[in-house]
Structures are given as C-alpha cells and as structure tokens.
C-alpha cells in the first residue's frame, strides 16, 4: 500500500449469520481521487461502506481510513469522514438550518465557525432560501443536496456517498454530479457506491466492480472498457462496396461487415485515434461519406462481461 492511500482495505470479510456478504476483498483509495464501488444490489457494497464508516464492526481483515484503524480507533475515523447515506437520514420536523446545526454541534464545531460554514454550504447547494423550511417540505433533490452539504460540514478528508443519486430524476442527478466534482476538486477524496454504470463511468477516477462479495475487476473507466477492446465505427458512404475494400487496407481495422444500413468497422486499437485515418482514406479514394458513428464499449458492456449478467434488481 502506498503512502498516498487514504483508504486501505486488506482481506475484508463479513458475514451475517450464514450469509457471506463480503468474501475477502482488498483495495486502496488514493488521496484526492473519486473511487467507485460498482455492483448489483446485494453484491456487498453497502456492507463494505458500513464497515468503512464504522457502523458495522470489523469481523475479519484490516481497514484503515485516513491513517486510523476502524477497529482500534473508530472515533478517530468518525472525526475525519463525512457521510451521505443511501436512505434519507433526515428529521422531517427539523428545518434545513437545524439539520445542519445539529450535525455541527454533535461534531463539536465551535459556534461561530459552525454558523459560517452552514451559511457557506447552504449557498453552495442552493438551499439558503429554504433554511427555515422543514425537511419534509423539500423535494427529493433538495433533500439529497442538504445531506451532501451536511456531509461536508465537518470538512472531511474522505466523503462517503452511498448511492448518491438513487431515485433522482436525470436533471437532479446531473446537478448532484456537479456538486460531487466540485467537492472533489476542492481536495476531498470521494468514496462512492453506485449501481448506475454511467454514473461510475462519468465521475470516477477508478472503479472496482464487486459481485457476490468479491471484487471482479478494478481500474480506471477507460482501462476497464479497453479490456474489452473492439471499438466499432459505423459508416455510411456513397459506395459501401468500394469503401469496404479500401477500409480493409487501413491499419488497426480488424474486420468490415456490410449491412443494408452501412458498414460496421471493428477496430483493434483506440477508435477515436483511428477514426480520422478511416475518414481520410475513404475520402482520398473519392468516396463521399454520409454519416459516421463511433461506438466504444460502455460500462454496461464491461459489467455484463465481468459478471456475466445484467444488473439485478431487488434486495439491498
């Protein structure tokens, strides 16, 4: 484990009675990165995050967060992390401001500092106009933003986000993504779980895919997608038959198949670098191009490849 690792997990195992929720996983999160745990419901994501945030006792393995051992020094860990829970952890009858004030007080932030940070954060998540509103009157997106603001109140070294956009509409999700990026750019390490492929893909520096309590693969989103290889270019031209012959001579083109709607060109290298050459060669042969489309493998493809199935539904 390197010196820049802010979370270190070694051989973590956890069982609930007969059920082995986590079956020996190891990973490290580097300081300053956004790290995602991707997996279907019931894969062991929540169990792992609950051990990391000291809500579940450590049974087997070793876990260090920000230099503190979760089993020996849970209180130290609690002091330096922020959490945005998956479920709605809000008191319906407290106001937005009271929710923040309560949090700041149980973490022992001095009054003036606390009040200043609350004002700042409510402005950042655009809830300052609602500070005296009870949380039960907030929309789903506002509630999530409030919980993100609360998680940041203590200026944590690591922010844990458990399914941060679960149940939100697409626009709200994108705003939440923006906040997550902002927080990360300000220097906070982010550990999040999600079962949305595109969310992990768009936000993360690195991803681990977990299934049946084991990590099946880890890497950057591009690395994961590149392990599948094979970008595909879809091409429509004035003369598909002649274009096919030209393309077969282009470097890195593995195969070209013709269909009534055009050509599918399978590429063995990075498609985005290969695409200009393909266009040059086809045009150079005097063939007009009608449309071009590049398709890279998605995280969905990666997920299906490594777990052998689509995302399951049901049971957290």
């Amino acid at each position: 484990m390197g010196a820049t690792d802010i979370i270190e997990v070694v051989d973590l195992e956890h069982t609930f009675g007969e059920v082995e929720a986590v079956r020996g996983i190891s990973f490290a999160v580097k300081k300053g990165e956004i790290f995602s745990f991707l997996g279907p419901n019931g894969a062991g994501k929540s169990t792992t995050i609950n051990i990391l945030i000291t809500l579940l006792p450590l049974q087997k393995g070793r876990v260090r967060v920000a230099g503190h051992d979760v089993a020996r020094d849970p209180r130290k860990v609690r002091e330096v992390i922020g959490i945005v829970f998956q479920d709605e952890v809000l008191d319906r009858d407290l106001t937005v401001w009271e929710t923040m004030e309560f949090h700041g007080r149980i973490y022992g932030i001095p009054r003036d500092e606390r009040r200043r940070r609350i004002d700042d954060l409510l402005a950042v998540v655009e809830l300052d106009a609602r500070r005296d509103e009870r949380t039960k009157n907030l929309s789903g997106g506002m509630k999530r933003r409030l919980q993100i603001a609360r998680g940041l109140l203590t200026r944590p070294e690591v922010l844990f986000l458990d399914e941060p956009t679960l149940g939100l509409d697409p626009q709200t999700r994108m705003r939440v993504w923006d906040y997550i990026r902002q927080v990360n750019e300000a220097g906070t390490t982010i550990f999040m779980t999600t079962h949305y492929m595109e969310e992990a893909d768009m936000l993360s520096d690195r991803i681990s895919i977990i299934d049946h309590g084991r990590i099946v693969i880890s890497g950057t989103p591009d690395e994961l997608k590149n392990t599948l290889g094979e970008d595909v270019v879809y091409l429509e031209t004035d003369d598909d038959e002649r274009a096919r012959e030209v393309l077969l001579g282009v470097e890195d083109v593995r195969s070209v198949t013709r269909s009534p709607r055009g050509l599918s060109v399978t590429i063995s290298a990075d498609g985005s670098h290969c695409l200009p050459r393909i266009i040059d060669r086809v045009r150079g042969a005097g063939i007009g191009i009608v449309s071009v489309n590049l398709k890279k493998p998605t995280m969905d493809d990666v997920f299906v490849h490594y777990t052998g199935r689509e995302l399951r539904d049901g049971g957290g």
Partner: protein
Amino acid sequence: MGWEFLTVYWREMIRFVRFRTQLFSSILQPALWMAFFGVAMSSSLGQFTSAIPVPAGVVQVDYLTFMAAGVIAMTTLFTSLYGGMSLLYDKNWGLMPEMLASPMPRTHIMLGVSLSGMTKSFIQAGIIMVFGLVLGVRFFHGFSAARIAFSVIGVFAFLGLFSLGFLLFSSNISMRLESPEGLQGIMTLISLPIFFVSNALYPVQAFPPFLQVLSAYNPLTHLVTGIRYFALGNDFFAVGARYAITTGDVLTSFAYLAVFAAVMYLLARRAFERAVVA
C-alpha cells in the same frame, strides 16, 4: 465529558414542541384522569371509607388527594416507558445512522433522550399539580412557604430518578428492537402490572402477601411513597389505612430508585455501545 448530549436534548425538545398533538395529549391525558377517574372514584370510595374511624391525631386525606400522587406517578411511568420511541423512529426514519457514525460518544444519545423525557415528565407533573389544586387536591396542606418549596424539590427529585430509570430502560429496549410496534406491545405488557401492583390508586396493605412482596420491589411504589411523603406529610389516614412514613422509609425509597436508575444506565450503555446499523 463533552456537552453533545445537550444537542440531542435540544433536538428532542424542538420535536416535542413541534408535535402539537403529542404535546397536547401528554398534557390532557393526566388532566382527564384527574377530572374523571379521580372525581368519580373519590365520590364512591368516600362513601365506603368515611365509616372507618380515623385514629386520633392523624390527618384524614380525601381520596382525590390520595390518588393525585398516584396519577402523577402513573403519568411519569407511561411517559417514560414510551420515551424510547423516538429512538426507534430515528432508527427507522431518522437521524440514528448520523448519530451512530458521529464521534459523539453514544452514551450522549441516551442521556439527551432521557433528559428530554425527564423534562416532559416534569412539565406533566407540574400541570397535574396545578390542575389538581384547582380540582380540590389538598397537596402541601397547611405547609409553610419554605416547606412547600422543599417539598416540591423533594417530589421532583423522586420523579427525576424514577423517570430516568424507566427512560433508560425504554431506550435500551428500543435499541434492540426493529419497529415502534414492538415497543408498544412490550411496554403495554410491562406497564399494567407495574401500575396495578403498586400503591398508586389503593393501599397495598389489603393485597395478598404475594402481591405485597411484589409491590415492595416495584419502583412505582417507591415513587408514590416519596411523592406522598413530600406532598401529604409523614403521617396521614386515607382509604381506610394509616400511612406513617419515616425519614428512613423515604431515604430507602430514594436509594432504591437511585440504584434502579444506575442499573438501567449500565444496561442501556451496553445496548448503545453495541448498536449497529442493519
């Protein structure tokens, strides 16, 4: 030792004031007991017991005054037994994960909740006393101002220990349960024997020996003894029985409640320290 429990207390009290129905029902319920049960029972019991001769030199206390102490005790018992309910709501729909994952020592959660429950009991007891005086309850009858002040402090000291004990008990059970419905069932089951096997509404002197022994170990009996000692005096006659309460008796009752609260504290602390989020 930090002061975070005051934050938990602050939040509980905000909720208490905001839940208008809870606030009013908690105030109305004991008043209704006094107004209906008290007045009805005192008029019928008065007929039976008025024939019993009162020993010379002993103060006769009417039934309404006698049972007012019981109603205060009962209200405190019920309020305290259900005091853990807010923890169960927090576990299922509230801030429990936030509090458990915070660096605040977990004992502060139960202390804050218990102190707020105690405050609610004090408010209720104060209201019953004032309302009782309006109905004709003769608490502190013939006492000097200084003695009234001392007696009120005495009553609240007993109420404080008693409610703390049962609030911690309720908190302990709540932390081990999943749903508010479970607590409801358990507490109803527990509250009935505690209430009826006590001296709250009638003298225990007429109980069968087995129930008399049980009532002597019942914290409610000790609370009622304390309230009566301070509110009615140390020697009075009510419902056909003489009550001579010595200073030793009162100190014993107080010590009993203190031990009860201490044991409940230790048991609750274990439950809180082991609590996990499922």
